[in-house]
């Protein structure tokens, strides 16, 4: 293991490769963010409010540009409740008006009532800029790893430990 450190140039190259991989991944994420105009273009479904369409752990791809048509009733959108940082994936059930000031009401397919109670107090409807993206594609189950990691934080330590072990073993 120490043979790697004895050669500082090799260690530096490895560090630089690691940094390059990290920054490439970050740039790709930000690039997709810019193309879709959404702060978070790929989201993992966290709740069961849209069952049976989406289960916990599904991966959703968002698009936030209105190129051909406005966001309309029936689209599944992700929005943040004003003042809270919780993204909610629900379907638009009502739209009054047109353009950025149009009033939108959302509801989860699996919920009995609409989202009026989830909105900030005094807010009865959403407007277009509350929405951070509309779902256009989906892959089942792939995101479950992130849910596992956030609900069982000890898994993160285990994973990091395993990765560290792999790096150390590879040197030999």
């Amino acid at each position, binding site marked *: 293991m120490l043979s790697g450190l004895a050669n500082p140039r090799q260690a530096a190259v490895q560090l630089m490769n690691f940094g390059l991989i990290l920054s490439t991944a970050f740039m790709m994420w930000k690039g997709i963010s810019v193309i879709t105009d959404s702060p978070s273009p790929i989201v993992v479904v966290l709740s069961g409010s849209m069952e049976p369409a989406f289960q916990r752990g599904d991966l959703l791809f968002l698009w936030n540009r209105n190129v051909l048509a406005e966001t309309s009733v029936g689209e599944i959108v992700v929005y943040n409740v004003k003042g809270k940082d919780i993204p909610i994936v629900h379907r638009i059930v009502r739209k009054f008006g047109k353009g950025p000031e*149009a009033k939108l009401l959302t509801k989860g397919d699996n919920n009995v009532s609409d989202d009026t109670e989830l909105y900030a107090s005094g807010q009865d409807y959403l407007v277009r800029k509350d929405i951070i993206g509309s779902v256009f594609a989906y892959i089942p189950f792939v995101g479950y790893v992130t849910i596992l990691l956030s609900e069982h934080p000890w898994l993160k330590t285990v994973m990091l430990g395993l990765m560290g072990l792999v790096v150390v073993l590879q040197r030999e």
Partner: protein
Amino acid sequence: MYTSVVRLQNVFGFFTTVAFVVAAFIAASDFLTERAPIVRTLKTTSVQVVRGRPHYYSSKKEEYAVINFSLDADLSSLFTWNTKQVFVYVTAEWPAADHAKTNATNEAVIWDTIITSPSADHLANIGPVAMKKLRKSAGGKSIDPNRGKLSLKNQRHKYKITHPSGKLAMTDNVTLRLHYNVQPWVGLLTWDQDVDYGYWKALKNGVSKRFKLPAIKEKKPASAGAR
């Protein structure tokens, strides 16, 4: 270069690549299957405007519309091996007050339903008895031609619709429109379309005749025989 760890990494990498390519092919197969949704009738059977509290959380009284309808449609061609569910919804649509200038409309869902594909029946949120019936109805098939055939007579609304202004009585040029949203197992979510795209036909006849929301229903005086 030939440690077990590297081999494991290579296998995992290959697995992810193959899985991704297979998923892409499955998603692309959707575009090669024909879709021909048909609506035979869509009409209102009863329309009322009531002044009251439409939801349990409503703090003030407002005018809300109660629309029941009949629907006869065949959406069974939307079900393919990649279909997870079809979300069918009926909306009431009417032009906004400043429609002449801005072309703005109001649209609200009055009824919706989820039709699962037999491959996704186990995910439907229904009780054990209904689940058994649903599974049996498919008869073990992976695509059931009976799913998607909707024959509703005088279907009760699911949602009472309101307007942000609180007023709905005597609104003109209201139409009902049928929409659907196909949710695949993997791939793009698609909605009903106005134009034919390749193998997918547009939904014709999906709009009802224009109707008018009536005046507020008069409450009968509180005496015998009243509701």
